[in-house]
């Protein structure tokens, strides 16, 4: 199952790489642009980045990024399934 998933991910990456342009965005993301988004290398992001709803979406995910650790469950109030794993 793991090999199949990894192979699928690699296949998607290779196939899409043939159709698009790999660029480095000013926000640090490595982006494969399949066209139409108007990205530019180390410049201002494309139209999708300027969408207010997308900016709001990204902003609420970035909160506490520096001080929180999503993998930290010791002493945390963790969900049962996850606690049971480790």
């Amino acid at each position, binding site marked *: *199952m*793991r090999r199949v*998933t*990894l192979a699928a*991910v690699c296949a*998607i*990456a290779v196939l*899409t790489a043939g159709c*698009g342009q790999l660029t*480095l*965005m000013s*926000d*640090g*993301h*490595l*982006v*494969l*642009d*399949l*066209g*139409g*988004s*108007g*990205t530019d*290398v*180390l410049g201002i992001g*494309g*139209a*999708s980045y300027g*969408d*207010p*709803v*997308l900016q*709001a*979406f990204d902003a*609420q995910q970035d909160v*506490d990024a*520096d*001080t*929180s*650790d999503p993998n*930290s*469950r*010791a*002493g*945390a*109030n*963790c*969900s*049962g*399934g996850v*606690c*049971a*794993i*480790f």
Partner: protein
Amino acid sequence: MRHLLVALSVATAWAVSGSAALAQGQDGAFRASLTPEIEFNNHIEFGISVDPSTVSGDTASQLKGSRSGLSARVETDGETGCLAYRLTFAPAVENYTGEDGFLDQFDGVRLPLAVSVAYRSTGRLPELRLRARATRLTRDAGIYDNWDPAVEIRVGEFASYEFRRRVFDESDRREDYLLISSTRHQGRGSLRILGGARTRVDMSYTVEGERYGVNLSELLYIAIGEASTFRRSDVRQVVDASALRVLSSSLLLQAGGSMMWNESNSDFYDFRTAEATGAAFWSGGEGRWVRAEVRRGWLDYGRREFSETLGGPTVKRRDTSWRGVLTTEWRVVDTVALTASADVLRNRTNDSREGREFLNYTQRIYRVGVAARY
């Protein structure tokens, strides 16, 4: 609890004054926030509802109560030439109520301090960021007290390596690997795919190795079938992918999937998980948003088998879960926002043996808070 609140206040005041002075002195920016919140939780866990149920299965597996918390956050950043820095201090204190005072042992303070320095070249090269953080966690029950330092090197937002060490104050025998010191190395790579102006796909691959201490309870060594000198070591791989589509200037939809494989040097801790997610995000202007999310999870233990009857056929343990989360933040004035969330998780296991009922549960967490930012 009172002395913890005093300590938090002093630490916050010190951080606020120090950060403000630093920001003013170096032409940087300074931000601060204060967030009181209260939460109801009908299934509080602190690493004691572990499998096998040597601890909680025979005691209180379904702890119900409320947690009131107060967290502060002070942050300052600035730039000098090619270098940019950011200092973050985010102390939090939490107080538990319920179960006739049993939950008081979980009252605690969390003190995370993070420092990051970024190098930005003038050419077409990605930013290099070095980040160090350390968190001190203390609870009334000293068994949870630990230091959690980590160092990370990040190339842009697409590659990173992190070294992390968790050190518990005492190394007496513990019933849970969550309460044992460990060392972790983690590498991560990610790629973002843009399909037109309104479609975005984020993919990532993470691999990590974690090595644990040896102070596990003798009972658990017997349960997992290893000698008491056994040192657990895991290799974890995680593949994530999520796609989002902007439907309008205020609404977007997101769908994603995630798989994790854990290979341990003990068969008992081999497992894999899969998760599918669907989410909708609505923005009603700056600082006002609502997010609804549904998750479906599967957990399979590769070799953790059980038999319902002595000598009967063996079955591999398998859990499934549904989870729904509704979160909102609503700015009422420039510096103050109300926050609320409802989180319901329903977990079911195929392990039908007596004493494992605690693995079938429905957890409900409701939280309301106020976030004041300056």
